[in-house]
């Protein structure tokens, strides 16, 4: 049974190897990708079911009990986020395939895209599942390396800068991560998360606090927490839509996940964490203001992404079961919604040939379908009921008020303000791009540039994939009941930490 935990990591890797070897057969690559992701979706669902019913599923790799070996742990939190991530990856792959067929024809194979996409999937899965700090580093590197390749693929002169920014900042943060691991090992002599929790208790308070904060920064860079967020709006918007969608939806969330996992499993803290709440407020406000200042649709969405990372940090800052329930729900919601929005943005640029809002107009008339596909996730992002964003936001707000500290109240107020600003930002997109006079599309300025496409060609695959995602955001809202319950159980697991520790350290018998 526990073998299933390894599937989301190893299967895509094996498939990536094959996809590389079959680099000349486009259909094989497509089929392989979709098949593997489909299998993982099923696998993740099964994992979630088992984790929820029977407790964390732990795979001691190689039969070596942790902390000697690396343990893969599928607890409720990991399984839930894995499931939603893989669903999004599946949909985005579908979109990508559609786009590539539209632009390059059916026979266009790629030695790059398909294998790398699969490796990315493996990295994301590993980041969720691993119970080992160094292995988490490896997971991040797998994920990031894939993202470097994807974001820099077919880059053009005007945008090579963006790729550089992204790559360099990420590499720097990786160096910080590695340094942090060095310091952790120097202080504790172990890198297993559950084991670390035990070792931390025996250290003097100064190193422990410094380590906790160092981890916040390391994962803060990855998750674009203010003031470490600058790179994101300068880089993400400059990749083709599906790539941006997947990076924006997943990578920052994995950063948040890692932050939550490490902070809560390894360290102990009272509810209402002033520093984190402060950072959350800064992230929300700066991000939202940034969004309001943009004219480029993708950049605006990127700033909103930053802003909403603040929501998740807020939940972590509340640091109790309610807060974490809120974060988990929010992550689930935001993964789907953010991916959808970037995909829709891709569709929009196909009709308008530009990413500048000031040069768009009348889209609602040109394509009512695109209007609907935009409106649902946009409203959801703004937290308008009855969409998923509202449910998740409600959970956060309740936790912020419920925690009963001044910091909590202030931050909750900022959440509300940010919601309003988000609504303003998306409403501006609506009024500028979807309303107004219909404009002739600007032609495709550079056919090698996948970002700006004014051809108006959209294959059914692209629209269907976007539709699938829109439906899944609706589904997240509709299933808010069970989702909130499972999130609450996951949050309880996290806070108590007992189930995780015994599952990782107590369960396996050595060798």
């Amino acid at each position, binding site marked *: 049974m526990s*073998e299933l935990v*390894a599937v989301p990591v*190893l299967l895509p*890797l*094996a498939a*990536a*190897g*094959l*996809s*590389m*070897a079959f*680099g000349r057969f486009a259909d094989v690559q497509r089929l392989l990708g979709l098949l593997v992701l489909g299998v993982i979706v099923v696998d993740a669902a099964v994992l979630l079911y088992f984790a929820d019913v029977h407790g964390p599923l732990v*795979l*001691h*790799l*190689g*039969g070596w009990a942790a902390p000697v070996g690396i343990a893969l742990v599928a607890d409720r939190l990991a399984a839930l986020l894995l499931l939603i991530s893989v669903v999004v990856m599946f949909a985005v792959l579908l979109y990508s395939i559609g786009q590539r067929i539209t632009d390059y024809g059916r026979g266009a194979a790629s*030695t790059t895209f398909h*294998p790398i996409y699969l490796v990315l999937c493996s990295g994301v899965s590993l980041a969720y599942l691993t119970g080992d700090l160094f292995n988490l580093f490896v997971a991040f590197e797998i994920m990031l390396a894939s993202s470097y390749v994807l974001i820099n693929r077919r880059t053009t002169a005007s945008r090579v800068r963006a790729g550089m920014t992204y790559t360099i900042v990420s590499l720097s943060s990786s160096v910080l991560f590695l340094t942090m691991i060095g310091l952790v090992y120097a202080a504790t002599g172990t890198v297993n998360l559950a084991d670390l929790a035990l070792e931390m208790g025996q250290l003097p308070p100064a190193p422990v606090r410094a380590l906790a904060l160092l981890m916040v920064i390391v994962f803060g860079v990855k998750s674009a927490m203010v003031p470490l967020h600058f790179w994101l709006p300068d880089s993400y918007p400059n990749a083709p839509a599906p790539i941006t969608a997947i990076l924006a939806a997943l990578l920052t969330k994995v950063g948040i996940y890692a932050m939550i996992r490490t902070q809560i499993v390894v360290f102990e803290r009272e509810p209402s964490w002033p520093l984190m709440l402060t950072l959350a407020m800064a992230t929300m406000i700066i991000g939202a203001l940034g969004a309001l200042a943009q004219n480029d649709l993708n950049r605006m969405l990127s700033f909103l992404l930053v802003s909403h990372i603040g929501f998740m940090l807020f939940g972590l800052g509340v640091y109790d079961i309610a807060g974490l329930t809120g974060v988990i729900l929010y992550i689930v919601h935001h993964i789907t919604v953010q991916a959808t929005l970037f995909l829709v943005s891709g569709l929009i640029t196909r009709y308008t040939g530009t990413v500048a809002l000031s040069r768009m107009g009348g889209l609602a008339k040109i394509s009512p379908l695109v209007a609907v596909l935009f409106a649902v996730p946009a409203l959801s992002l703004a937290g308008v009921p009855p969409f998923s964003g509202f449910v998740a936001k409600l959970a956060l707000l309740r936790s912020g008020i419920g925690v009963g500290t001044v910091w909590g109240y202030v931050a909750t107020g900022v959440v509300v303000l940010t919601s309003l600003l988000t609504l303003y930002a998306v409403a501006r997109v609506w009024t500028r791009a979807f309303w107004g006079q219909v404009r002739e599309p600007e032609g495709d300025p550079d056919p090698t540039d996948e970002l700006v496409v004014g051809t108006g060609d959209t294959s059914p695959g692209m629209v269907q994939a976007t539709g699938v995602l829109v439906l899944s955001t609706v589904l997240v809202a509709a299933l808010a009941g069970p989702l909130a319950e499972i999130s609450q159980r996951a949050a309880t697991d996290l806070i108590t930490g007992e189930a995780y520790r015994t599952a990782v350290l107590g369960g396996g018998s050595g060798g």
Partner: protein
Amino acid sequence: MTDPRASDGREETAVGAWFHSDAPAERWLLSGYSRDPRERTILLELVARVVFPTVIVFSVYLLFAGHYRSGGGFSGGLVAGQAFVLRYLAGGRLDDSSTVSMRPPVLIGIGLTIAVLTGLVPVLFGGVVLESASFTFAVPLLGKIKVVSSLFLDIGVYLLILGVVLDLLRTLGSGIEADIVELGGGSR
């Protein structure tokens, strides 16, 4: 004794052609194509012809010795890669000189697949993912031979790293070179 290259029409001046050639009379390293004589060096080609297989043997040693001494798949693969670097430096672009002519991405893919399959195979025998086992055979004359299943992971590593190095030579090496030629960056 005449200089066959002195009157070669391709060169800008005969002086340049002569000046730049240390080319040996025979093809010491390359079987397939002839390269620009200006880039050949008799000493290097000759030495590479001996050193190349030696280094490959050394890399295989590292691969197998890794379990007991310094070495391992990484070092082995890297050393093998360096052997190809030498070959590339001496002979120019890597040609069809090896029996197995494989595109580097394919080699990488195979390496990755082997490594992952090594992890997955134990599951078929009811083990845990990435579990290892060791088997000992007694062979007459040769003595006891011990095979550890994790060796296959090391072999995957070896192949993948070799593929990576070859790919780097293909891209950063020949790729950039071709680019220089195509864009007219060179003087030839």
